[in-house]
């Protein structure tokens, strides 16, 4: 069964709720709509927006988390992305960085390319993460639960995964206007 628009919140609504709870934590955001929407909702220098290298967002976040053990590192990811880089769930689960929170917006489609179905309708990604060694995993469907669980994860030692079921709606958000090398420099300076 596919998540119908209207019965679930949108990814943009979920991103807005999460960003309200974050301040200066590094956030690595996967390619496609998640980066564009986060950029539109709140553009912070601590955001690293990806425009390519699909599947690699948690690996980049892991590199940041290992190099900065005193900073809580967040990654915003999608179901198609997680499926593409699923090995990284194992790497994170084995290394167990305490400062690592993996948020997955699961709309069961490849939204950027025209809503072709992924297989996350039959593969529970948070259970894969749990089996791989993530310490805390939660699956939520509405805004109140999302806020409650994310606040809780910010207080706990990770690695944690918050999987948020969202609908297929994509915000009218343009491409990221910053040049990629400027994003690198801005992010590096912001998390120094």
């Amino acid at each position, binding site marked *: 069964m596919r998540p119908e628009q209207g019965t679930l919140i949108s990814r943009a609504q979920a991103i807005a709720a999460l960003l309200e709870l974050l301040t200066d934590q*590094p956030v690595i955001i996967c390619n496609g709509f998640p980066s564009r929407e986060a950029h539109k909702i709140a553009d912070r220098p601590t955001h690293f927006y990806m425009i*390519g290298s699909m599947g*690699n967002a948690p690996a980049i976040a892991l590199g940041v988390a290992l*190099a900065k053990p005193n900073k809580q590192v967040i990654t915003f990811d999608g179901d198609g992305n997680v499926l593409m880089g699923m090995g*990284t769930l194992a790497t994170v689960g084995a290394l167990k960085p305490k400062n690592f929170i993996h948020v997955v917006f699961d709309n069961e489609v490849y939204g950027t390319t025209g809503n072709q179905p992924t297989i996350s309708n039959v593969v529970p990604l948070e259970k894969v993460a749990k089996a791989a060694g993530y310490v805390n995993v939660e699956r939520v469907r509405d805004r109140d639960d999302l806020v409650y669980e994310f606040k809780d994860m910010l207080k706990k030692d990770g690695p944690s995964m918050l999987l948020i079921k969202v609908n297929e709606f994509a915000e009218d958000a343009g491409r990221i206007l910053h040049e*990629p090398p400027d994003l690198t420099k801005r992010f590096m300076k912001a998390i120094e």
Partner: protein
Amino acid sequence: MAYNARAFLIRATVKEEEAMIDSDAFVQAMQDMGVNFFTGVPDSILGGIIAELMDRRLYTPAVREDEAVAMAAGAYMAGKIPAVLMQNSGLGTSLNTLISLNMIYRQPCILIVSWRGQGGKDAPEHLVMGEVMPQFLDTMKIPHRTLTEKTALEDFKWVAETFMKQRIPVALFITKGVVKGLHP
């Protein structure tokens, strides 16, 4: 990133008669250059180096080369100087990450790549990449150089300078028998 040539020179010359670089000298040269984040996927040619890195608790194992490259990119942005070890087959696996992350975002790393299939003498799966690897990296505009015992000092200096100047991945090829492996 500073390059301490003297430290490497002392270690390298001690073993000159054997015409082979010791794994600990290789790792020390990397550390002297300022490299302080090592990740990758193993290869037999790199076995000695990885064992030495693990002894020094410097190595973070990855499960795929593109993951290793992305992890290194994150570490770089968090202030580290990263190196990624891989067999040359891993260049194929990490191609998209190298292009759509490192190259366009200007995120450097040192790729320590074992040259399997060099000269057509290896298992069949290594022969194509072994033959085309330098041209493959030329096409991707990734600078590369092959480490030799005689030119090791210049090779490391070139790696450090290219990393600092170009801010993109730079590859150092390791051929069989140049750095001491696990089973000499």
